[in-house]
């Protein structure tokens, strides 16, 4: 028997490995990841020393950490402005994006808006930040507004496409069973669109983080980690720049891992099943 036949002859999906086996493979993967990270850190320490590169360009790990310790209080003081801007902008981008995405996705008359938002997604929106910072001042408010704008578009687009991609058959069969419009929304459309919506939240989250840091780097008075990076760069304090980059990476990593875990939890099973459903012939 060929592999193809074996695969086809298995209508009962055993896509997911049994629990203990999955855990083991996940642990092995984690081990490999940690090993790669450790290797990179060792290289970071050794390569600048071996190359004896000028300290303004590449700084060994130990020197970066020392620079971070020297600048400890401004760095710690910058965490909250950055973090709070990210969190507030996330809430805005997600809420507005989900609600607008659902409305646009379910209403044929508003579909044309998707084209507009799709086009906006391609525009480097960062060009409008100078305007926003002139109108609202370079503080937290303009940061949050810009980051929300930046993050809302992928959330809106993926939510709308998630709602639109809900199988017409599911809709019809629920209607034939007497589902009211409200039941159709809460019991069919929302759960069916959820996996796609959550993947949009992750995309939007990444953009919000980028937007906040970029705002901070562009406006020297806005505060936050981005502003510090620009400041240290101007002062040729490469070690502190490296350290701040590490802090931003840590932000990104924590956020992505959290959202990824939510995505797997909420969407994993449902996403797999939708894909294994037979297609209408």
């Amino acid at each position, binding site marked *: 028997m060929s592999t193809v036949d074996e695969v086809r002859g298995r*209508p*009962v*999906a055993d*896509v997911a490995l049994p629990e203990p086996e999955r855990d083991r493979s996940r642990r092995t993967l984690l081990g490999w990841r940690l090993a790669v990270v450790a290797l990179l850190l060792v290289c970071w320490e050794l390569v600048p020393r071996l190359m004896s590169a000028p300290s303004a360009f590449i700084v060994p790990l130990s020197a970066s950490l020392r620079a971070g310790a020297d600048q400890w209080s401004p760095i710690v003081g910058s965490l909250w402005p950055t973090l709070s801007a990210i969190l507030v902008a996330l809430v805005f981008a997600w809420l507005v994006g989900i609600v607008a995405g659902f409305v646009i996705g379910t209403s044929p008359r508003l579909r044309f808006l998707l084209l507009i938002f799709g086009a906006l997604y391609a525009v480097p929106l960062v060009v409008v930040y100078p305007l926003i910072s002139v109108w609202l001042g370079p503080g937290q408010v303009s940061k949050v507004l810009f980051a929300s704008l930046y993050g809302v578009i992928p959330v809106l687009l993926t939510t709308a496409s998630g709602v639109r991609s809900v*199988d017409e*058959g*599911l809709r*019809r*069969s*629920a*209607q*034939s*069973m*007497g*589902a*009211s419009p409200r*039941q159709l929304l809460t*019991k*069919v459309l929302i*759960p*069916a669109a959820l996996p796609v919506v959550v993947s949009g939240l992750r995309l939007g989250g990444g953009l919000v983080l980028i937007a906040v840091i970029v705002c901070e780097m562009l406006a020297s008075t806005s505060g936050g980690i981005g502003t510090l990076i620009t400041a240290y760069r101007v002062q040729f304090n490469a070690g502190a720049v490296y350290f701040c980059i590490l802090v931003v990476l840590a932000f990104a990593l924590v956020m992505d891992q959290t959202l990824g875990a939510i995505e797997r939890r909420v969407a994993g*099973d*449902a996403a*797999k*099943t*939708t894909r*294994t*459903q*037979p*297609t*209408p*012939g």
Partner: protein
Amino acid sequence: MTIPQLNAERPLTDEAVIRVTGIQHSYHTARGPVPALENVDVSAGPKRFVSIVGPSGCGKSTLLMILAGLITPTAGDRYVAGAKVTGPQPDKVAVAFQDACLLPWRSALDNVAFPLELRKDPRAEREARGRELLEKVGLAGYADRYPRELSGGMRQRVAVARALIQRPAVLLMDEPFGALDEQTRMDMGEELLRLWDEIHNTVIFVTHNLAEAVYLSDEVIVMAARPGRVVERVLIDLPRPRPVEITETEKFLHLRNRLWRLIRSQE
């Protein structure tokens, strides 16, 4: 009330449980309206098993959706149990679709009980009835399985159980076994008849498989395409119950060939 008499072999004497008359339906496309159905009258009496066959594009699935109240035709009327209605009638008419259309995030039991949940029946009753129906379709041990863990045939059984939980006077089936392999299709047909013997409601069954139509039905409505219309209504006077061996009898083959010629002659 007059009952339309098409070119049926024998006048329909019994009161129809479901009936559509004077159905016209066109689809709107960029190049203008395309007629899908023209002047179609279809009815089914109580406890009749009626199949609709025809070439692809004859609008048989569209007709079924109109019977289900899921598509509003351009013109024509629809009667269920004597009353003129528009829209779905979940307490009288249930639909089983070609792809089972199960909700993937719900277990088999929760899928079967879904219609009862929509009309807010108490949970205990939903579960009891759901289990009862799963047992009827031979899936008693699969209540907690998710659709992805079931084979195509099993999913279709869950869909049939879900339709039957509505205790419908009319069960509409849109090529329910169309996506299954030939062997499973025959098994499912046999099982459907056994189930129907018990429930004995009205079934309207859309298929493109002529043998399946003859095997299952009391009458077969033959449709033609461009525009979709009813050509003839063929009575299937094979005795019931029907063992699978009946498909090898001369009478069966004769009926099947007759349907075949009717469809061929329209091309």
